């Protein structure tokens, strides 16, 4: 096992897939000559040249559509968004075209494109740079949504995403690029899309958290341990398709659940997981499922307001005490 930063894991996945398959290429803002806004594509221009690492203008709608067309015509584009907050400008291409072209052509056209980049908040960046979009995209059929939390998962899942014959959104976080973690040395290390992972065993409560919130859940689990509460932590890794089985199995063991989610509460990831739990494990629950999410307001700038806005481990501990009646 190698200890790698998140950005290195991303870059290794891109490099390996580009070496393996000539059809894979990268496009996005600052990906080539600038070496990547967050250095995830550093060195790839030198290795693969400007024909396969393409700097784009700030035209999210246009270059996303170009990627969709290139994917339809036999290539495997990997589009980097500087953040998924900017991808809103490209939503027509992602939601109306990439996800639907196979269906509305009766299966004649496929669109194997990957859209990747950081998702959700990254400190005091204000309202337009802080939104988590995984729940919104997961609402739509025809695409897969991955929001990873650790370098090892990122590498294995990004490689799987690039090989997938469907459109895939692959989400990261500005605040995780420097995070170190173990990455398998295995040659051609692939993680299957749609598989959650139990990352901490526990008996009293199940915490479900993905992306940056996985780390909040893990910190909460440590705090809870000091108070004698044993928390199991599940990282879904893939938002869509969602591995409900792994979550349900855990609930059947712990009988309690808190979902930690950086989406807004209405119709979000936490709401969906909560629904699935009541449907599949109603008789096993000893308490209502509780969610810890960002509130139903935009991200504020002021430090104190922002800190109150973003879920933290203490919020999770508080929620766990509610479901364990402590």
């Amino acid at each position, binding site marked *: 096992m190698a200890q790698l930063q998140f950005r290195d894991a991303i870059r290794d996945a891109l490099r390996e897939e580009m070496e393996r398959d000539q059809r894979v290429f990268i496009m996005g803002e600052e990906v080539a000559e600038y070496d990547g806004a967050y250095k995830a594509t550093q060195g790839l221009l030198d290795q693969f040249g400007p024909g396969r690492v393409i700097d784009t*203008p700030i035209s999210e709608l246009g270059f996303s559509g170009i990627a969709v067309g290139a994917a339809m015509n036999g290539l495997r584009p990997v589009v980097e968004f500087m953040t998924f907050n900017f991808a809103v400008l490209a939503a027509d291409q992602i939601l109306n075209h990439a996800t639907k072209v196979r269906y509305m*052509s*009766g299966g004649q056209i496929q669109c194997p494109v990957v859209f990747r980049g950081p998702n959700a908040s990254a400190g005091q960046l204000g309202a337009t740079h802080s939104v988590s979009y995984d729940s919104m995209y997961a609402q739509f059929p025809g695409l897969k949504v991955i929001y990873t939390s650790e370098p090892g998962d990122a590498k294995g899942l990004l490689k799987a995403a690039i090989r997938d014959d469907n459109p895939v959104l692959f989400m990261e976080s500005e605040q995780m690029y420097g995070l170190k973690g173990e990455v398998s040395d295995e040659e051609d290390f692939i993680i299957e899309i749609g598989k959650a992972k139990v990352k901490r065993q526990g008996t009293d409560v199940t915490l479900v958290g993905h992306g940056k919130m996985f780390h909040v859940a893990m910190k909460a689990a440590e705090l809870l341990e000091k108070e004698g509460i044993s928390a199991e932590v599940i990282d879904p890794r893939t938002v869509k398709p969602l591995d409900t089985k792994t979550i349900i199995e855990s609930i059947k063991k712990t009988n309690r659940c808190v979902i930690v989610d950086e989406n807004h509460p209405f119709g979000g990831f936490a709401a969906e997981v909560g629904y699935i739990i009541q449907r599949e494990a109603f008789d096993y629950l000893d308490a209502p499922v509780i969610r810890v999410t960002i509130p139903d307001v935009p991200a504020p700038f002021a430090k104190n307001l922002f800190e109150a806005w973003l879920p933290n481990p203490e919020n999770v501990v508080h929620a766990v005490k509610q479901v364990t009646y402590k």
Partner: protein
Amino acid sequence: MSGKKELTFAPTGREPEFDSLIHKSTELPEATKKTHKQLKLSNEQLLAFFEEMYLQRRFEERSAQMYQKGKFGGFLHLYIGQEAISTGTAAAFHPDDDIITGYRDHGWGLVRGISPRAGMAELYGKHAGCSKGKGGSMHFVNAERHFWGGYGIVGGHIPIAGGLALANKYKNTGNISACFFGDGAVDQGALHETMNMAQLWKLPVIFVVENNGYSMGTAVRRHTVNEIVDRAKGFGMKSALINGMDVFSVYEQMKKIADEVRETSEPCFVEIRTYRYRGHSMSDPQNYRTKDELEEYKNIDPIERLKTYILDKKIAKDEQLKEIMAKVDEEVLEAVSFAEEAPQPPLSELYDHVFAENDYPFHT
């Protein structure tokens, strides 16, 4: 407030200069003076043009009839009046050159190998339709023949055309891509973003505005500034203005443009002026234009024009053309019966073609 001018934003259609005149931006450029021989078109090719154009016309006239009888639902946007563009372009292009268009797509599908049966069955939402009944009128597709389809979001397919071209350049296929859209799509940001990248990246793509005078019910003058063709100037892009009511003009210029785009891998922006005889869709009362204007264009109908040429040059006799028309009439009627009797898609198809794999765990 009396005596002050009424507050307006969009130019209104009520001013006298908007009544029953063909305005500057829709004025037809001159048609080519070349004969078919000078264009190296054989007599057989001319008859094939005639047949293709007449097929598109009859197919849509019957579609409209069946739609009005309530035989199928959805939207129905007719291409009637614009057939010279699809026909001339398809003949000017290589068979592997990519074509992609908006939702007014029936004519394009027919010139790129969708049979009247498969087209009509698609309108009817039948399993034998060109898109298996999943697309409908706006989503005719024949990917095998490089017809990438009709798309329902105005301008949404424009960047996709850029991507088709990028892939051709990347794979060095020698194919070009052409994107057709109406004058309404000219106002979408997607066009401008894609034109910028196409010129910057030297993509072998042709952007073609089929300026039929109306963005739904809004005349060109009322929805966009200046001459459409001049949009190319800001991007340093080559451009052309073509008379879309004359199949020879379309063929001649599109061939030249296609050759040049193939040769140089530089994009081109083309405005083809034409006229949409019918409303935007079947539910359009067409209060925004006069009968005189419509009649004026019907007098320069592209099919009539070619017919006159064929007869004047004694390329075929009237009876021969009547035979072709009778054959097409029969073929379209047969397509209607076929579509009526064809089975609907099986319910099991609801979940097909969403994902590449057959075992995707759909969320419930």
